[in-house]
């Protein structure tokens, strides 16, 4: 059944307004990143002045001894490493909770659900004390390990495994003599792929934007992710650094956009597939 012209027009108009609302700040960022410091307040906020993007990016890469590229690489390490880890851990935990009956399964799941409700900043001090004792303060692992924990991810993986991985199929695998690990990696992971892509993207973006955890853990500027670096520059509050903050923010959103465009194919197709299966 085709929707009527009227409802299609209305929907399109509504989506257009939402799109403008969402994209406007990104547009401002793009436009502002091309301006020299003086032009920022001197030219229309939402249109280009003299294009200085190349100069700005060049300065950005060399500022403070070229520390920005370093921050960017760190962010990539934290985001990719943390998101891959979180996806693997969540997938395994969710699958186990879904497919293996064991004593206390309900309790374990309840505890994990409860963890979803705890605001992250509340964990700052305990985490700091814990990392101090483990000797992980001011190390990359101090950021990576906590990033690999995602209670919501476990929940999502479990719910998805419940719906998308038929227990009969696992039985068939066992009858054919496959070990549990092999069944998990060759059968379950493929069936759970859409949820895992979603999970990876969520966690990737969350770590990419994370400020609190690295702030608590890291002392050394060379280990900082982009978020910490930009906040530091922004707090210096001179015009020179303002240019760097804007350009730096612009450059730092590009990889996220690329990650979404690259993974969106799987995501879209699979979400639809999932909904049909469910």
């Amino acid at each position, binding site marked *: 059944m085709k929707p009527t012209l009227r409802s299609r027009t209305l929907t399109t108009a509504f989506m257009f307004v939402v799109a403008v609302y969402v994209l406007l700040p990104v547009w401002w960022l793009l436009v502002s990143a091309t301006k020299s410091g003086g032009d920022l307040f001197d030219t229309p906020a939402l249109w280009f002045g003299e294009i200085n993007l190349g100069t700005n990016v060049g300065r950005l890469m060399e500022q403070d001894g070229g520390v920005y590229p370093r921050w960017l690489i760190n962010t990539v390490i934290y985001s990719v490493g943390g998101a891959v880890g979180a996806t693997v851990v969540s997938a395994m935990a969710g699958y186990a909770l879904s497919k293996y009956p064991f004593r206390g399964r309900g309790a374990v799941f309840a505890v994990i659900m409860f963890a979803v409700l705890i605001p992250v900043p509340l964990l700052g*001090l305990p985490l*700091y004390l814990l990392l101090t004792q483990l000797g992980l303060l001011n190390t990359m692992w101090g950021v990576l390990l906590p990033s690999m924990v995602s209670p919501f991810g476990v929940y999502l993986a479990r719910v998805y495994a419940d719906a998308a991985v038929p227990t009969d199929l696992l039985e068939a695998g066992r009858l054919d003599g496959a070990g549990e690990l092999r069944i998990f990696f060759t059968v379950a992971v493929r069936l759970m792929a859409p949820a895992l892509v979603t999970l990876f993207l969520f966690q990737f973006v969350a770590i990419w934007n994370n400020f609190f955890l690295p702030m608590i853990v890291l002392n050394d500027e060379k280990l900082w992710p982009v978020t910490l670096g930009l906040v530091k520059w922004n707090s210096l509050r001179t*015009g020179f650094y303002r240019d760097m903050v804007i350009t730096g923010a612009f450059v730092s959103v590009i990889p996220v956009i690329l990650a979404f465009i690259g993974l969106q194919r799987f995501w879209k197709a699979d979400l639809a597939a999932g909904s049909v299966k469910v």
Partner: protein
Amino acid sequence: MGKSRTILGATGAMVCVSLVAACGGQPGSQSSAAPSAPASSAAAGGPVTIEWWGWAPGYEDAAKAWNASHPGVQVKFTQTQPGSQGGYQRMLAAVKAGNAPCLAQVGAETLPSFLVEGALEDITAHAQPYNTRFQPWTLNTVTFGGKQFGIPVDSGPMGMFYRKDIFDKHGIEVPKTWDEYAAAAEKLRKADPEVSITTFTPDDMYGFAGFAQQAGARWFGISGDAWQVRMNDEATVKVANYWQGLIDKKLVDVMPGWSDGLWKNYTDGKSATFVGAVWMTKVLEDSISKTSGKWAVAPMPVWDVASPSVGNVGGSPNAVLKGCANPKEAVDFAAWLSTDATAFNDLIDKGGLFPVTVDGGSLPNMSGARPFYGDQKVFQVFAEASKNVSPDFSWGPTMPAVNSVFGEAFGKAANGKGGTLAEAMATIQEKAVASLKDKGLTVAP
């Protein structure tokens, strides 16, 4: 929560001391992760290491300079996030974990918070020999209940940045008092309806505090073992009413502080003065570079020509954190940083810091001519001003909470969305008292 704490957070301090003792007292225990325990190296006769956390540009080089000339006391500087962006949270966490640095950059407005958390060492005895070098009012910002908890580093005496060309063009004299300032505001509006005397930034509590301080306000104080809160005292209300008058007559523009709109106003020449702290010197140069050469600096307008007191905004002392094994060495270094002529002369240049010492005005970098201000030796104006800073102003232990209440209440009033600035101050006073009581602190009536 309801348990009341003594003024200096003694309860918290005791916990910390015992925690630190527990952590530091067992060599080879789990605390090995903590960055170096200076006590042991001192006992062994090797050089003492002082850990130092901060974020001011130039500190790293200062530490290097000290280390080169003081082999017995080595300072290890670590750059942190600026305090309000998480640096303070991290310092307090480190104090609780027992691995805090000996020395840390803690803003004057945040020292009282650290104090009630029990995160500071009393350094009165160690600091005493150095105190004659400092402007007395700067010592008041680090002294609570008669005990000293920090070594002042920099200050932000206020002055008036003004567009010389605009005043000249309309033949208006540069105001020396607040009465003249209001009169100049009227003349300016008459001469050019597009131009206001200034852009008022109601959400900037620290800036307004500077105005109030100048008039003699004392927002926080300590009486016996209770905090005094007087955010709507007579002087503050006088200042609030003064600005309310200018807003009512539409003689000033109103914009949020640090906003694009604010800078655009100044870039476009729509406001003729900016009354602010010395560190605005560079901020203006960078933010509104298009107007270079048209500005000049004059002393802040005063209430009373006979006693020309001025306000101060900002200042980040170095404080010795709880658990420091070598407080004396930490203080020695901190005092050197603030008072050594070569060291501080560099900080003026690299960090944009303004000295707190009695003779700071004579440092070479204080007399640079700045093209943005028509080659005026701007810092000399502020050096003069810093001698006249109203001496009795200090901060309270809940400034972040008070700040957010302030921004909201003042913003509403200044934008004509309810009440006057003076009424807003009464609300802020109430909430400030409540925020102290929420922390379990005693508030004197």
